[in-house]
């Protein structure tokens, strides 16, 4: 039995889903005999966390702020073990553009796409490139913000005249958007759960729109407009291939604990194409991860129990790795760098959309030499944890970091 802080709500547009997931997790944790401290995250998060003296934080936040590594970074600084993926994996998953670049580099199939930020249009005349893009991708084209969790801001452009309005909509959510080839096929979600023998893909959930219009994306998220079947009715070989692709994606992005990978099984080719990975999938009564777990014979309580257990395991694995390494004090220069980076991060956490600098550095290293992707991911995460380690060594009192 432990003291578990459930982090939920927050300022994200997916606040409602998060609160519903959080309530379910709290109930499950209570039934498992844990002591639950529910925290609706806001400006007082650090104070609440310190007051809570929790053994572990269960993060059920969705979208920017909670799912992008920001809260995770904060928990690293406070030295509180937490559920799910770490900072680096979260910042990879939240950014669909980054995810897709990594997938391509690792030769995991993903629909063809082009990504732009607002500056490209405002200052570089990227609009002139739209006809070429449209010719490459063919209509309909899916336009989406890089960093929004749910279906918000995702539009279908059926013809060239739809594209500008679709871009305007997508830019409402993020400064970076992507135009993606629309894949006609079956809409699959593969939840991955870590276990004693490494990550395992749970039974596949298929989303089947109730109406005929397969362009109607919003339907998927509206109650009653989409039917979900689990396990999806697929030939065994296809199931295996789809699950394999999901596991490859999970490992590539460096996820831990659990995640959900969304895949389109293209009708014409029978090829699974990865759309995105969600570092913190929903846990509501209609969410896909609980459905998949249930189909694998893992009820909500067992799922929550496993997720908490994994958080402890990850924390202790890292602690023992740290102990083994017996690190000397880091060189003065790099420790100084780390300091400024951390303080910078910290001062900007009030703006939830800020992305951690550390991760962009690591990620650019990855993308620049994409060939040895696996090795580089490992290097990058080692580097990231080194950074953290040097923090705790250079700052014996965490308080001082907080106050800075």
């Amino acid at each position, binding site marked *: 039995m432990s003291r578990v802080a459930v982090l939920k709500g927050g300022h994200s547009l997916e606040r409602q889903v998060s609160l519903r997931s959080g309530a379910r997790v709290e109930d499950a944790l209570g039934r498992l005999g844990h002591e639950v401290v529910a925290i609706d995250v806001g400006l007082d998060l650090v104070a609440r966390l310190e007051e809570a003296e929790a053994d572990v934080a269960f993060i059920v936040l969705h979208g920017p702020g909670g799912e992008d590594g920001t809260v995770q970074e904060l928990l690293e600084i406070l030295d509180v073990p937490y559920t799910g993926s770490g900072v680096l994996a979260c910042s990879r998953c939240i950014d669909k553009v980054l995810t897709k670049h990594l997938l391509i580099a690792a030769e995991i199939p993903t629909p063809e796409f082009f990504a732009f930020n607002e500056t490209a249009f405002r200052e570089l005349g990227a609009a002139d490139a739209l006809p070429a893009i449209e010719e490459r991708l063919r209509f309909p084209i899916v336009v989406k913000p890089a960093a929004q969790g749910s279906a918000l801001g995702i539009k279908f452009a059926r013809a060239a005249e739809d594209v500008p309005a679709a871009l305007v909509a997508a830019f409402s*959510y993020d400064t970076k958007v992507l135009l993606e080839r629309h894949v006609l096929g079956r809409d699959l979600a593969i939840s991955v759960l870590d276990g004693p023998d490494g990550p395992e893909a749970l039974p596949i959930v298929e989303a089947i729109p109730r109406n005929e219009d397969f362009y109607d994306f919003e339907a998927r998220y509206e109650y009653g407009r989409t039917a979900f079947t689990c396990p999806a009715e697929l030939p065994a070989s296809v199931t295996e291939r789809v699950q394999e692709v999901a596991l490859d994606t999970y490992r590539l992005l460096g996820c831990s604990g659990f995640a959900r990978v969304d895949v389109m099984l293209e009708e014409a080719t029978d090829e699974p194409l990865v759309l995105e990975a969600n570092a913190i999938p929903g846990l509501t009564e209609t969410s896909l991860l609980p459905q998949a777990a249930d189909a694998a014979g893992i009820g909500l309580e067992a799922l929550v129990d496993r997720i908490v257990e994994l958080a402890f395991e990850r924390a202790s694995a890292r602690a023992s790795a740290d102990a083994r390494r017996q690190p000397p004090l880091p060189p003065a220069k790099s420790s100084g760098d780390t300091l400024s980076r951390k303080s910078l991060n910290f001062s900007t956490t009030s703006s939830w959309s800020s992305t951690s600098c550390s991760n962009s550095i690591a990620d650019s290293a990855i993308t620049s030499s994409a060939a040895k992707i696996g090795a580089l991911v490992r290097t990058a995460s080692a580097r990231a944890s080194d950074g953290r380690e040097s923090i705790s060594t250079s700052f014996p009192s965490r308080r001082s970091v907080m106050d800075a």
Partner: protein
Amino acid sequence: MRDLMAVTARPEVISLAGGLPDTSTFPPDTFAAVATRIAEESCAKALQYGPTEGLAETKACIAQVMAAEGMEVDPEDMIVTTGGQQVIDLVTKTLIDPGDVVVAEAPTYPGAVPVFSSYQADVVQIDVDEEGMRVDLLEQTLERLDRDGRRPKFIYTVPTFQNPAGVTMSLERRDALVELAHRRELLLLEDNPYGLLRYEGVADPPLRALEGGVYAMYLGTFSKILSPGIRLGWVVAPPPVLEKINLGKQAADLCTSTLSQLMVQAYFDEGDWRDYVGSLTEIYRARRDTMLDALAEFFPAEAEWTRPAGGLFIWVTLPDFIDTTDLLARALRDNVAFVPGEAAYLDGRGRNSMRLNFSGSDEDAIREGVRRIGKVVNEQVALYGTLTGRPSRAARAHAPAASTADSAPADLAAADPPKQPGGRVVPLPRRSPPEERAGGS
């Protein structure tokens, strides 16, 4: 969208979204006097159940309110309800079987949409213009329904200071609607929460006054003239309908809060209830003018909005390439909220419109909120211009939306006419000149 609306409740958000009256100026000593009076005179009664149809003393107060708008009513024809919202629910529950047709306005009160949907009504929406519901279109629609052998169970309308469009039905249309109801023997549900909150002009009679109560059902509420917190509304309806509503009311909650009903009675005994309505009217008029001025200052020339003579709302229509649900997501990052237009439709229209409320925020907040929304709208208009290679319209909008490209070269406009806006269904008056708009303040 509902998930988005949940985020608007954050304290740092300037919300122009709700329909909240300002309760901050209600005199606390009046509240105390009311409470004391109840404690001294009717403590046991206030704590007890009451009759389903409501207390006679409360009905007498309601009769006063209705008389103030030119209606005479028999207390026997009235049921006191838990807010006006319950009336919509009870009437729909009483009259609608799944698949039955309800006629509503387009746009309609967003709070009625989930009620109609939950009873599986087939809602047919009739466009509204600056004179309220288009009764000519209603007639055509009814003829079309006739041919399919269908007929609406009732027609739902907010004729005065309509929610969400802010427009008021003209007397001509009121007469036409009443005549139509009689000729076709159709029930009307007149929703009149704001009729007494008039900031200019002279009131036309409510439908109920014109019609006499044969086919017109009437919904009233204390929410906007006293307090929404006391949850007190009422319905006046023809006896056969009223009996059914009474049964539905028993099933729903047995009776309306006795305490709230006695508060109204005590409040009416304390002083003249019209004084507080008068003070609210002064406050809201200034806020409306502030909002209209801010819209003129901060919104782009491509935007249009209504100029309500009363009530709580202004309806803004943006260029059709802006989706106001997405715009809300963006605006929330700047801590400002509104109701996206699609909430007022059941058929996906209204995507480029928004409802703004001016009663629930003070003048500084209204101005700042409109400024923030305007900034985001301007950004999106500019971005769209960049994406299409068409500059945004600099001149004031004189013509309907079909001339969006009127500042672009003529050949371009001719070669590539903008598509018809799917969401614009309120061809409301264009911006009035600033001097006119500032009038009254």
